[in-house]
């Protein structure tokens, strides 16, 4: 009985943990839309917070993935079930949008945005490195997504 309870608890906890990461991934779309609303205005504390939320969100998802091997295998198992071509456009900024943000982040020779903004390409590169060949090919099928990820330096040709 004691052992049965322990197993149940363990299973509950492990599925909850993946659930948090999955909701983080689905929230990226909403966060990205908020970022897009700040592109035409000057940088202030509010817009910096919006940028932070999106870029930190991307980092958190990649961190969870990179620090948990069970989550990686879970992702590979479920990838084709949940993957859609729209995911890339929904959660990744275009190179042009990213460059606009970066130009605003440099003021009087100082860099003033979240560190995650500056490290966006490196974070995406890490995320891409966890995908298998077939998963990466599925991503690259969408020509605009492939172009954008290449421009951002997230993937190689």
């Amino acid at each position, binding site marked *: 009985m004691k052992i049965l309870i322990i197993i149940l608890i363990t299973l509950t*906890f492990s599925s909850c943990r993946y659930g948090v990461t999955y909701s983080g991934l689905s929230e990226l779309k909403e966060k990205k839309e908020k970022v897009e609303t700040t592109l035409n205005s000057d940088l202030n504390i509010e817009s*910096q917070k919006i940028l932070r939320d999106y870029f930190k969100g991307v980092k958190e998802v990649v961190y969870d993935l990179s620090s948990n091997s069970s989550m990686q295998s879970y992702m590979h198992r479920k990838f084709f079930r949940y993957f859609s071509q729209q995911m890339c456009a929904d959660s990744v900024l275009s190179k042009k949008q990213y460059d606009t943000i970066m130009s605003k982040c440099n003021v009087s020779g*100082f*860099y*003033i945005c979240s560190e995650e903004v500056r*490290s966006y390409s*490196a974070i995406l590169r*890490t995320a891409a*490195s966890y995908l298998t060949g077939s998963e990466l090919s599925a991503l690259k099928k969408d020509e605009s997504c492939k172009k954008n990820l290449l421009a951002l330096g997230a993937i190689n040709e």
Partner: protein
Amino acid sequence: MKIYIYIITIVLTSLASAQEIDVSLDDVAQKVRESNFTVLENAQRVYQAKETINFSKRNLLPRLNFWNVLKLPFDWLSSVDIVQDIAPFLVPNNWFRLSQNKLFYLAQKEQYRALWANEVMTAKLLYLNALRDRDFLRILKVQESQVDELLSIVKSRVILGGERAQILKFFEIRKLEIQDDIRSLSTIFFDEKKALSFLMGVPSEKELKLVDIELPSLEDLSEISFDTFVFRALDNAPEINQYKYIKDSLRFVRREAYFSFLGASSTSRSSSVFNNIPVQDGLGFGMGSSLRIAGSESKILEINMNATKEVIKKNLYNLVNNYNSYLKNIEGQKNRNKYSQENFKLIKGQLVLGGSIDPLEVLTSIESVFDSSISLTNYEYEAVTTMEKIKRSIFNDDYSKKESKLHLVIKGRN
């Protein structure tokens, strides 16, 4: 043969002791990263925290405790007790400890980042201070030569009976005062170089040779605003991030209290920060107290975090205000120096031509040139120092070490 070995050893030792090392401001950060004693010690603590995670993970795997196995034939009920040995992964508190240790590792990394940045900043500011003192020395030597020149003119006037002898004594006293200032400042410069050697982990026997820096043209810089900078200062501060990770780990301590009826963890924490939160081994009436103490601990962390935020904001306000005030007033300082130089040239020209000028008036002019030169140099170095402190607050340039999680993400596969 022996004597040759002695001679070679002595020659090599004297060569090594007289060795000079050229150091530029850009080298300082690199040297501190590689050789600073405090940074190296703290890096070991981060390594220990990381290794504790590995220990916690491996502690979830079965292990053999010979005495517990021996008990089995006599008492079959003791098989339940050996769950911790044969299946420690079935004890939830072992998992919670693992999660805590992962977060403590991130907190330790943030502590390291703060310490590392402070050591780099201290070394860089010391370097700038040493350069400033070396420039002050140059200005003092110029003043000395100007007083010397004036002294010889006054001497001739005294011999010719045009001046009182007391004036000569007065100038000699002033000259001795300047010489003493030069001696004191040389000693300070020497001390600063030795302190810098220590911060950079360079052996004391070696002599540092500081390379000059190009001071920025302050007129070309534009003023900055607190509102633009405060976000990054708070967002990237390791001092705050450290509290966040520790506070995050508190939820696992609460879970430990809830699940204590399934056995206590056999893994230790890599940090002693929650040692004051008691967790019962087994189901008991103490759980409520444990949870309340954990709640109180959370409040303490929140208070500390808010206090740290205010300290960071206060410092940033001062830095931005100083920086802007230097930019605003640099023109006045430059004019002050220019006018005093012109005034000195005018008076000196009249004196050389034999004009009836009071030598004390010339001395006042020399001192005015000295004061304005010192003030201008100080101004320029203060501006650079303030820029350096702002860079430390917002983790730019030499201080741009990545936040713990981000560092791990980027390091992951690239």
